[in-house]
């Protein structure tokens, strides 16, 4: 396959890519042939095998799989199914030529240190779940609403939380903590039998099952369960729970064929420790005790995606915080 480009007189001058995420840059470095998988108002997705690259204007925010360009995507005139060729620091798709030769590589800043008020911040955010859209997973996580998705998701989130939690003490299930309160006796029994961070067969199976239950569950471009898991991975990374992050990352990658290929690419990036700046802002706000800022950040990510990710982060922070005591 030739990756040479024939820039005829009809081809517009190339568009400069301003910034590239680390995953997107790696994919472009490898090169190859792909196609336009989706076109939205402010962004489009190129698919190359299992990988997706998001190309968008600066308003979408930087991310690991994102290329930021100086143009409105809706006006490029590209359509789903068009072929794309990547190589020589350039992407050709339709009559658009993107030039990566002078782009910066974007990486998120380091995570802040978690402040002592993390449990209080999480409780405050849980109280704000009522502000989320009716079909969000955060309502299921914090005991609000009774949609079909919430009914299905609630025990699955409880199972995930039980994997994260250390053996429960008699006081761990409280009225204001519906996730812990919803844990079944059976699940608690399993927790008691296993050391919190052990990687015994039982806990490994429990993790795999918890992930398989959540992955691909729910509405939207990225199913809510996937957003939940991405929030969990990001929070574990922020809390430097390296071993647990790695275990969850492996389980997520193993189950990635149970969700859409696009969402799977986001999950793989999160499992490798890469998140976008909007999510980074949200997690950092939780870590520094700014509940209002975390909720505000959540409302700016997708329809329910921000809230679903927030649910994963808060459920994880509550459970993982117990490990740090």
């Amino acid at each position, binding site marked *: 396959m030739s990756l040479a480009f024939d820039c005829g007189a009809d081809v517009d001058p190339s568009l400069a890519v301003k910034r590239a995420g680390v995953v997107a840059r790696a994919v472009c470095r490898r090169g190859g042939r792909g196609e336009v998988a*989706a076109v939205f108002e402010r962004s489009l997705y190129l698919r190359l095998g299992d990988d997706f690259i998001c190309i968008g204007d600066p308003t979408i925010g930087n991310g690991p799989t994102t290329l930021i360009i100086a143009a409105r995507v809706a006006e490029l005139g590209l359509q789903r199914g068009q072929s794309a060729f990547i190589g020589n620091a350039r992407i050709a798709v339709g009559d658009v030529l993107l030039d990566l030769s002078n782009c910066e590589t974007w990486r998120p800043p380091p995570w802040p240190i978690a402040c002592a008020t993390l449990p209080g911040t999480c409780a405050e955010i849980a109280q704000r779940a009522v502000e989320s859209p009716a079909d969000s997973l955060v309502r299921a996580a914090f005991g609000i609403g009774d949609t079909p998705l919430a009914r299905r998701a609630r025990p699955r989130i409880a199972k995930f939380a039980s994997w994260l939690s250390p053996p429960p003490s008699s006081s761990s299930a409280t009225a204001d903590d519906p996730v812990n309160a919803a844990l079944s006796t059976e699940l608690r029994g399993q927790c008691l039998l296993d050391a919190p961070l052990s990687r015994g067969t039982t806990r490994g199976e429990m993790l795999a099952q918890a992930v398989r239950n959540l992955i*691909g569950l*729910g509405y939207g471009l990225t*199913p809510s369960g996937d957003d939940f898991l991405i929030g969990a991975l990001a929070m574990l990374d922020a809390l430097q729970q390296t071993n647990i992050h790695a275990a969850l990352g492996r389980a997520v990658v193993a189950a990635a*064929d*149970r969700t859409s290929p696009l969402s799977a690419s986001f999950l793989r990036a999160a499992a490798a420790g890469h998140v976008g700046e909007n999510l980074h802002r949200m997690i950092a706000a939780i870590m520094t005790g700014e509940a209002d800022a975390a909720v505000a950040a959540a409302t700016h990510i997708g329809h329910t995606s921000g809230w679903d990710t927030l649910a994963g982060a808060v459920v994880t922070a509550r459970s993982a915080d117990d490990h740090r005591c």
Partner: protein
Amino acid sequence: MSVIRNEVRRATYLDSIILMRMSREIAALAGVEEAGLIMGTPANKEILREAGILGPEGEKAEAGDLILALRAADPAAAETALTEAGHLLDRPSTLGAAVAADAPRTLRAALRELPEANLALISVPGDFAVAEARKALDLGLHAMIFSDNVPLADEVALKREARERGLMVMGPDCGTAIIAGVPLAFANVVPRGDIGIVGASGTGIQEISSLIARAGGGVSHAIGTGGRDLKAEVGAITTLMAIDALDADAATNHVVLVSKPPAADVARRVLDRIAATTKPFTVCFIGLSDFALPANARAAPTLKAAAELALGRPLASRAAAVSPLHVRGPYVRGLFAGGTLCSEAQVVFAAAGAAVSSNVPVPGAAALAGAPAGHTMIDLGDDEFTRGRPHPMIEPAVRDGPLTAALADTNVGVVLVDVVLGYGGHADPAGHLAQVLGARRDGVAIVASVTGTDADPQPRREQVAKLEAVSVVVADSNADAAALALAAAGRANTRERGAAAR
């Protein structure tokens, strides 16, 4: 007998917000009993199976496929619904093709197609708006910059360059204009008339022009300036040029100027310019009441008052005829898509001596700190709500969360909302609001204003009917709605005090 139908779109990715909107639209189609539009992952197929709407086609879907599953009252209804749903699903995917086929990709190419054009409307990310505006000026075009997030220094430089060339830069962040009868960006369909409007406020122009139109008047031109034009740094460059233009325009007999309170020296410069004209002016510096005016100008404290002064007669008001409201809590929570409508509501409350707070406070109102308490007016179009997501005039679901929170707050007795119609806005904002509100009220009165006209793409009459069908009280203007909400909350206060006394 009910029938199940599934349609599977292979490897189809749609934006989440569009997916949710389509789901609602499909579920609302005639004869549809239940519907789901969801990625075909194993977990989601379980949900559809449990709901009893997963058919053999849906069973075969893969994780990257989009499943449309529905149950309809009968086969005919199912087929009709599938066809309608298919149209909805095809709509966004044809966007790229339509743009490619019809729209020029550069300003220069657009000018080749329309050589007599004299204005460029620029709507690109803020980082690139300045460059596009300079291109427009270089081509001899006035520029209307819809984009926001343009640095103030760039705005000043652009406007000075334009002034030297005799061109006008409307904006940045200029959401509304009506030039020679043509609505631009967020604007309403109003008849031509002899009233000119200069506005640093988009929804201010919309409310005033709509009130004028509904009262039988008309608008010659409405020139947006951008929200920062009357700041000291910019010095009202565009406002002054717009006043010059309307002063020279034979079709304009009265000019309305609407803005947030300007810097003092800028106000003086603008009022001096007004004094030099022979035409009557109405000045609405929303939130500012104590300022000296030239003899040919009168001050309007509210947008409604501005429309009345421009028309030369009071507007009809149904507010006094609304039956008494029964509200459970003593406070009003205003949730606004329009920033100036939020300001106007604060002015109404402050003028009545009621303490009010806001995330965008006018003089006399308090800055909102932390969770809303007391009478609170929230501008949902402010940057904190719109960064990275659509403006609430485009996507009314932005209001859903704050609305749900207000309905759950037992201190809130009245929720005050605005519905803004016209080009650029959502196709059915009242329909969305009515769906969210449903019949559930729990002792909370909903009072609304609907900015727009019956000639808008969303006819006002139909939008009002949708709200009234779910017991929303619709006032004739935003100012009337604010006054009505305050009066209703006042009755709750009186009841509360009475109960306490007993």
